[in-house]
């Protein structure tokens, strides 16, 4: 729940204002003539399709990139940041879409990086630790200040990133898709914090593709489309979900899930007694032809670990994976792919995109073996394949030759999906957080794609931390909790409270034998 009532508006002048911001990258007009303002003590939503220019705007606000033209003013004073240091000095902090942590440093060091408490350059570790532990407690995070960030899960890292921003005494805080790797529980913590910040009179820019969050948190919102200002709503009173969607994607989307019944066939994927170094207890599950199985759980419940084991990305300690009744060796991702099992992993930056390669290369990296006789490429087939998926998934890129790192986050995610959609002979498709950072319109298209693949007889496993999504598209839901399967539900039994309850570790109700330790 958002604490406090909607902000008082004693000062109606915009505290933060963007005027005529334009920014062009080679081949891409990322922003053109964007102007709007945000009042003090309010949370302002920034939404738009993938590649609409949201992150670019935030990067300009943070002093990371310079706008080609236009101006930002805070509290009436024009600002001209040439570096992030300048932005900090002016009281602006940003949580970027991609995590910006140093894995080799501890949580405490990451939180105060660039601003260590020090005397004559010597760090005061005691006060650093005290302060950090206090802050972490405040935001309800149970990690120790001395843990190396490398040891944390993605969700925990995301919380650290947020903590990093609120530890600064900022006037303007911009959050770029902060909940994309958070579970609903952690999101609640974040919402509470945002409420407190608003009450303290800060300006918060909030970017998200989850419209319910926008409605819940924001006092007003701005819609970007193709780098232009599509709509600006100082208050949320006048807008509805459907009108926002229409402003974003230019058409109506009535039912984003669009689930439809399918006939379910034989068991295609059968996992038996699988264990690994991070999942000591044996796990079994199966997925049938034409079936979409959703995996839900809290951050760190072990879903990603499980899928990596099934795929052969991590070494298995024991257990079997059967594909169409045949024992899959699962010794490496390479073998799994050849046996018809593919995994689209969750951390697109770390083990998803291949930096330095083009969009096209990233799409065909795995599928090209089908059209490379004796290991010799056929550039035409590759170009065709890339073009096909760029078109089908509507990936916003000037060309297939664009370097992947230059794409917006959501478009990178689409490229990863394309990589696996380009694979032929897939029997089992596992997608881990497939719609992380993807806009509403594209989400609907991706779901549609999943249904049509399922109709072709694939078994599909979807791992997601978004409960509505899991419930919206799955035929069956498997709930994981603390490294084991806590519950299974058929579509008929879907119930938000039941599913959430079984995902929580220390629940007393519903489960007679409460788990020890």
């Amino acid at each position, binding site marked *: 729940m958002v604490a406090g009532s909607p902000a008082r508006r004693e000062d109606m002048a915009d505290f933060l204002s963007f005027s005529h911001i334009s920014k062009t*990258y*080679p081949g891409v007009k990322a922003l053109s003539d964007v102007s709007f303002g945000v009042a003090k003590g309010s949370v302002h939503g920034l939404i738009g399709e993938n590649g609409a220019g949201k992150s670019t705007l935030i990067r300009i606000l943070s002093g990371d990139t310079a706008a080609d033209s236009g101006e930002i003013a805070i509290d009436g004073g024009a600002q001209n940041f040439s570096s992030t240091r300048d932005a900090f000095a002016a009281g602006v902090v940003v949580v970027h879409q991609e995590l910006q942590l140093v894995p080799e440093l501890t949580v405490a060091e990451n939180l105060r990086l660039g601003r260590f408490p020090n005397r004559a350059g010597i760090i005061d570790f005691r006060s650093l630790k005290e302060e950090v532990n206090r802050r972490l407690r405040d935001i309800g995070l149970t990690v120790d200040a001395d843990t190396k960030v490398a040891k944390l899960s993605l969700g925990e890292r995301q919380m650290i990133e947020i903590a990093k921003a609120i530890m600064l005494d900022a006037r303007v805080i911009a959050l770029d898709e902060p909940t994309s790797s958070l579970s609903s529980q952690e999101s609640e913590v974040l919402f509470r914090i945002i409420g407190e910040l608003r009450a303290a009179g800060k300006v918060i820019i909030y970017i998200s593709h989850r419209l319910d969050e926008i409605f819940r948190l924001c006092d007003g919102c701005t819609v970007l489309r193709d780098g232009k200002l599509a709509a600006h709503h100082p208050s949320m009173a006048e807008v509805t979900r459907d009108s926002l969607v229409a402003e974003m994607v230019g058409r109506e989307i009535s039912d984003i899930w669009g689930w439809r019944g399918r006939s379910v066939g034989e068991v295609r994927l059968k996992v038996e007694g699988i264990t690994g170094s991070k999942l000591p207890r044996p796990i079994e599950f199966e997925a049938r032809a034409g079936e979409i199985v959703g995996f839900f759980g809290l951050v760190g419940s072990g879903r990603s670990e499980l899928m990596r084991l099934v*795929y052969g*990305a991590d070494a298995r300690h024991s257990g079997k994976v059967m594909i169409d009744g045949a024992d899959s060796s699962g010794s*490496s*991702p*390479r073998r799994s*792919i*050849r046996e018809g099992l593919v*995994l689209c*992993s969750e951390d697109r930056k*770390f*083990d*998803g*995109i*291949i*930096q*330095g*390669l083009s969009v096209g*290369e990233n799409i065909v*990296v*795995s599928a*090209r*073996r089908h059209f*490379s006789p004796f*290991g*010799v*490429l056929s*550039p035409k087939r590759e170009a065709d394949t890339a073009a096909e998926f760029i078109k089908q998934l509507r990936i916003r890129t000037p060309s297939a030759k664009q370097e992947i790192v230059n794409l917006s986050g959501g478009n990178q995610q689409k490229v990863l999906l394309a*990589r696996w959609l380009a694979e032929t002979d897939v029997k089992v498709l596992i997608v881990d957080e497939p719609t992380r950072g993807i806009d509403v319109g594209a989400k609907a298209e991706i779901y549609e794609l999943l249904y049509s693949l399922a109709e072709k007889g694939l078994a599909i496993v979807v791992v997601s931390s978004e409960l509505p999504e899991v419930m919206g598209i799955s035929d069956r839901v498997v709930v994981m909790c603390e490294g084991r399967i806590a519950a299974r539900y058929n579509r008929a039994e879907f119930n938000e409270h039941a599913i959430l309850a079984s995902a929580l570790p220390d629940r007393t109700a519903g489960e007679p034998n409460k788990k020890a330790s």
Partner: protein
Amino acid sequence: MAFLKRLLLGEQGLLVIFVIAFAAVSIFVPSFITERNMLGLFQSVVTIGIVACTMMFCLASRDFDLSVGSIVAFTGMVAVMASNASGSIIVGLIAALACGTFVGFVNGVIIAKLKINALITTLATMQIVRGLALISSDGRAVGINDPGFYQLALSRFLGIPTPIWIMVILFCVFGFVLNRSVFGRNTLAIGGNPEASRLAGVNVDGMRIWIFTIQGLVCAVAGILLASRITSGQPNAATGLELSAISACVLGGVSLAGGRAAMVGVIVGVLILGIAENAMNLLNIQAFYQYLVRGLILLLAVLLDNVRSTGLGRK
């Protein structure tokens, strides 16, 4: 003007800059652009040119190979000694190629399977292989009994010496492999993001082993040609080759962070180093000043390429 800018900043900008520099050297350095000097120039870059081909793959996959100089010396020794011992040049060549390949394979296995840092591994094999070369010959040069061995380097085809042909063929082969084969593209993918490549089904360990093995084989080719050119196996040959080969690659735009490489660039890099050396000797620049000039040329070449990429908005 706009045309010039497009030319300089375009894909082939490095090549254009090189051609301009080449023309300048031809005009200002007397007797540079004679047939004899050109052949001499190309022959002088044969060793480094050949080794740079595979070094490019090594760097593009985010690895490092410091052992190339030692392998060149060692395989040269092996070629000569095995030829002498068996009385057959063919046996000598096969022995040398086998030894080079084996050393490369060992490098690859240690790096890929035991996960030891490539720099340290090849620094170690660099010492070990050099030690083997010295031990096997007792630190002395070994002469070649059969004069047929010299013919490898002296024979000509269409008026151009065989070593140059071999270098050109390797340029073509590895250029093709880099741009047109799954192997080449996978090499770049590994360099770009090894973990993502593994999850995308690339056999990362296997690729790395192959890259180092081929590197060893190619070094053996260079070693044989070198032994033939100097008509003996010398255990002290080719010291410092590793840094020259790496420089040539980096000059040619190969990224040490992996993921970026181009054969044309590497050829240009190799030629820049060769021409600098050649022109300095033609101009009779004093040995100590050659150090200065060499350093400045290195800096200048990378700086130019950098200005170009920035203008291109690539970085």
